[in-house]
């Protein structure tokens, strides 16, 4: 019951939100909705035990597809991330004015429903449905409320990801006809038997779809543009949660379905991912636009997660799992700050910022903590994830790890450069009249900081939550 309500609450309230006229009412309404979802997600994550099919009803019998949901550890964790993120985002953007806000919030909730669905679906066709459902609202959100070049940029993003998902659809169909019982269920997919050549080919159809979503170098170019142009609330959803769709899909739908191919191509993919890490880090280093900087930094982090997953080692996977959560929290926190800066100062250029530490000390502290989490300093949540992932990567290949390790250094370089240029030095024309962050944002970020530190010191709950998924993969391959 809980899993389906995780999808239904945002879906229904999202549709209702469209019809609420008063902006204030809508805001409180969606906040309430997202908080209820959070309660359900918490209940699901920590108070439900039984894994396995959570819901399984007839949907499209002639197609061999059922409306079946499943909640394993990874799903619980990502649902929790989604459920935590949305209220946080809603609170953080309380003060932002959106024209036609009922549609804005309605679409946000719809995308939440889609995301939840992706993380819960245990049926390939259903998964594909939610995969797209999450995308469409975001397309509208970005195109309507985004920046100057929003239409072209969002369109590129949409076509790119849609192309990927179409390729995946072709692959899904191919697999469907090779299942023993002609079914889309996860279980049938896991027991599929393909010849080596087929597997290799279909593997790539899937992987490209997920690689575009994550995104993995060299499929990443839509991302900085999209993040730059989207309204920040959407950017948070995209970078905090939507990129996890790709990673999630790799773990749930790629590696177990194509066990041989994912070992066969692991080298290549890890190499791509690591190249992307270094590449994105270097570019982030030269960015002047703070949004693009965070975007590239996100690409670098995702690259590591992807690489760690393909090592298929317990530690790599475990690290990737919790890093999905951690990255979500950290990057949303960063975006909230970036949004505040943009709103308050009217600029995103590092060269035009500076001296905020004097003007906005509270923000400065939170910014520094977020930045430190971004560079995976020990005792922040990201450290545990990166430590485990690098560890997994190390057991896979020493040189890869050394190469990937360069990004640790580069991360410090660009993140601290950002911190320095934003917070330190003397004030600029833009930051002279800066004031500190609002209470809403402050409290959201404080909660995030607490999450960051608690999970940095005691990550065990997350590790325990996801261990079953990790085991299911390592024992299979």
């Amino acid at each position, binding site marked *: 019951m809980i899993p389906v309500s995780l999808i239904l609450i945002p879906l229904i309230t999202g549709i209702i939100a469209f019809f609420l006229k008063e902006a204030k009412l809508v805001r409180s309404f969606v906040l309430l909705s997202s908080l209820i979802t959070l309660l359900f997600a918490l209940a699901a994550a920590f108070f439900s035990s039984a894994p396995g099919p959570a819901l399984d009803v007839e949907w499209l019998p002639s197609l061999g597809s059922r409306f079946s949901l499943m909640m394993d550890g990874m799903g619980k964790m990502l649902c929790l991330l989604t459920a935590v993120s949305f209220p946080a985002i809603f609170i953080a953007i309380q003060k932002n004015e959106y024209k036609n806000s009922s549609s804005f919030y309605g679409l946000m909730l719809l995308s939440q429903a889609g995301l939840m669905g992706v993380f819960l679906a245990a049926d390939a066709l259903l998964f594909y449905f939610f995969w797209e459902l999450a995308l469409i609202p975001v397309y509208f959100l970005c195109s309507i409320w985004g920046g100057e070049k929003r239409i072209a940029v969002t369109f*590129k993003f949409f076509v*790119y990801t849609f192309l990927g998902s179409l390729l995946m659809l072709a692959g899904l169909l191919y697999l469907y006809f090779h299942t023993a019982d002609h079914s889309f269920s996860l279980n049938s997919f896991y027991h599929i038997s393909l010849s080596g050549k087929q597997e290799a080919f279909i593997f790539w159809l899937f992987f490209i779809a997920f690689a575009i979503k994550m995104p993995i170098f*060299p499929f*990443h*170019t*839509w991302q900085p543009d999209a993040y730059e142009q989207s309204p920040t609330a959407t950017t948070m959803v995209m970078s905090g949660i939507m990129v996890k769709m790709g990673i999630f899909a790799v773990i749930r739908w790629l590696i177990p379905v194509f066990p041989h191919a994912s070992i066969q191509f692991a080298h290549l993919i890890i190499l791509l991912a690591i190249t992307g890490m270094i*590449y994105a880090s*270097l*570019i982030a*280093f*030269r*960015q002047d636009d703070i949004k693009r900087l965070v975007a590239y930094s996100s690409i670098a982090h995702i690259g590591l997660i992807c690489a760690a997953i393909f090592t298929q080692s*317990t*530690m790599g996977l*475990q690290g990737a799992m919790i890093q999905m959560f951690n990255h979500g929290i950290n990057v949303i926190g960063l975006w909230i700050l970036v949004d505040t800066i943009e709103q308050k100062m009217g600029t995103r250029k590092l060269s035009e910022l500076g*001296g905020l*530490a*004097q003007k906005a*000390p509270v923000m400065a502290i939170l910014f520094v903590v977020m930045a*430190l989490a971004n560079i995976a*300093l*020990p*005792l922040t949540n990201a*450290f*545990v994830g990166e*430590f*485990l992932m*690098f*560890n997994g990567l*190390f*057991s896979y290949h*020493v040189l890869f*790890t*050394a190469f990937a*390790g*360069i990004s*640790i*250094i580069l991360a*410090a*370089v660009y993140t*601290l*450069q950002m911190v*320095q240029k934003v*917070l*330190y*030095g*003397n004030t600029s024309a833009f930051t002279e009249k800066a004031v500190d962050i609002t209470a809403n944002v402050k409290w959201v970020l404080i909660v995030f900081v607490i999450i960051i530190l608690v999970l940095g*010191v*005691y*990550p*065990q709950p997350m*590790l325990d939550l996801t*261990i079953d998924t*990790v*085991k299911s993969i*390592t024992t299979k391959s």
Partner: protein
Amino acid sequence: MNTLVFLVPIFPLLGFLINGLGRKSLSKTAISLIGSGSILASFLVSIVLFFDVKANGGSVTQLFEFIKTEGFHIPFAFQVDQLSSLFLLIITGIGFLIHLYSSAYMHEEEPQHFGRYFAYLNLFVFSMLLLVMGANYVIMFIGWEGVGLCSYLLIGFWFKNNDYNYAARKAFVMNRIGDLGFLLAVFWILAKLGTASYAEVFAGAGKLTAFDITAITSLLFIGAMGKSAQIPLYTWLPDAMAGPTPVSALIHAATMVTAGIYMIARSNILYTMAPATQSLIAIVGLATAIFAATIALKQNDIKKVLAYSTVSQLGYMFLGLGVGAYTGAVFHVMTHAFFKALLFLGAGSVIHAMHHEQDIRKMGGLKKYMPVTQLTFLLACLAIAGIPPFSGFFSKDEILTAAFEKNPLYYYIGVAGALMTAFYMFRLYTLTFLGKFRGTAEAAHHLHESPWQMTVPLIVLAVLSVVGGWIGIPEVFAENAHSLEHFLSPIFAESAKLAEHHSLSHSQEYLMMGGTTAAIILVILFTINKHKNYIPPVSETSGLSKLLENKWYIDELYDTVIAKPVQAFAGLLKNVVEKTGIDGLVNGVGKLVGYGSRQLRLLQSGQVGNYILIMVMAMVVFFLIWFNDGYLVHIFKKII
């Protein structure tokens, strides 16, 4: 007993939280009380622990599981044994003194920043304690990065100045380079042994291949290079002098920079099993010692001289580690902590009096204004120069003796470095305190001795600098007088078994000590004499001295060889590869579609005749395709 262990780091942590959160509401007095008090509390607990260890030996206390997953766990555990308890004392003891000192030194800051300062400082002590107390490499790494962070925050404490921020960033990044090495070593250990706990790693070290051990130790050493400012990663330390002087004293002289030595001493068994790495350490340490000393000869910034001196002394410590004199290295850490902290605090006192003027060319004759400072500074100089019976003599001598046993060449170069040390320290001393005041009259007017919060630590440290060496009196003077060696022996016992022993005859040792000491005294006299009536040169220096003044142009070298190319490369990636390459390709597909669209629509000419013509031609093509004897079918099937 075990229950006490967690108290040691918890006090500074509490201090950090209270000062950090309450920095706006608390008064300066309250802040300094909380800041210093928490460290004092830790110090007291450390003393208890120290004696407990002395009596009962070391122990490991596990607080909780930090990371636990399939077939792999890392406990959050503290190990208090001889080595760490010694370091605890150094850290909390000197830490307390410096906190006390800071409460006066930083008094001009606004309360908010004052609070921030103490919060950072407490956080630093907390991290340093984690580093030292951790019972496995991961916890050590947490502290390792934590101290790096605090160093970053404190170097950039005056964040309005962008140069300071650059210095802070540089320190952090260089440390990170080392940290990567450390981290890789930890992964290597985990991959091979499945555990990171010291006890298990050292017990299982025998199972490792020679290559593994060499790789692990080398990587760990890279970590140490970063943290302890060894060639080639030393350049951050002189720049780190941008921070407040007490910070330099605590972090960049007494404690943090010695983390590398602590770590190698901690892993001594591994290093003893990797002679190649040991040689590497010895050579790097020696090279750093001599190289930094040459630079220190010509520096004019009071703190820069001390910074290079620190780098140089750290080099000695690594030399000691490299030649297997672990006790000697640790001993030197301790004595160095005393006298170098003292030197920095003395310098701070001077700077305080000079209103943040750091150029020694503009000082001179301060002796009469600041007697306490002058005296303590002199004692520290004597200690660092290695004049018996000051502390530096014993520790340095122990290292050099061990180096001689390993390879006489090490010894001679080391002695040359010691002579340079004497030279630059006394140059500094002379220029600062002797002669005539060379500053402005207004500056002279403000000169004064520092308040008691600053002088008391100076005095305490001066005493320690004098007597600190007496716990490690070499055997040539008295049997079993080296109580430090005795105390630490459980830690280094395994290594001692493995290492080969030469011993020198007593006469040889006397000769060496005597010779060296005499040489050093000569150098000191020469230096004082030379600089007594110093007049700042008007003309530009040239030749070797210019090279030295500019620190061998190493910063510039790094800039051109590493920083600039990386920047250029990143710019290339950003502007060319990303924009026109990858994104260009993606957009190119879009453009291609657009172009195709413009071309293809021309086919739709609007002329019925053309349409039908194309249809007829298509029919002909269809016939051709169908009736070509199956050749196409063959190709087609291949495609499928």
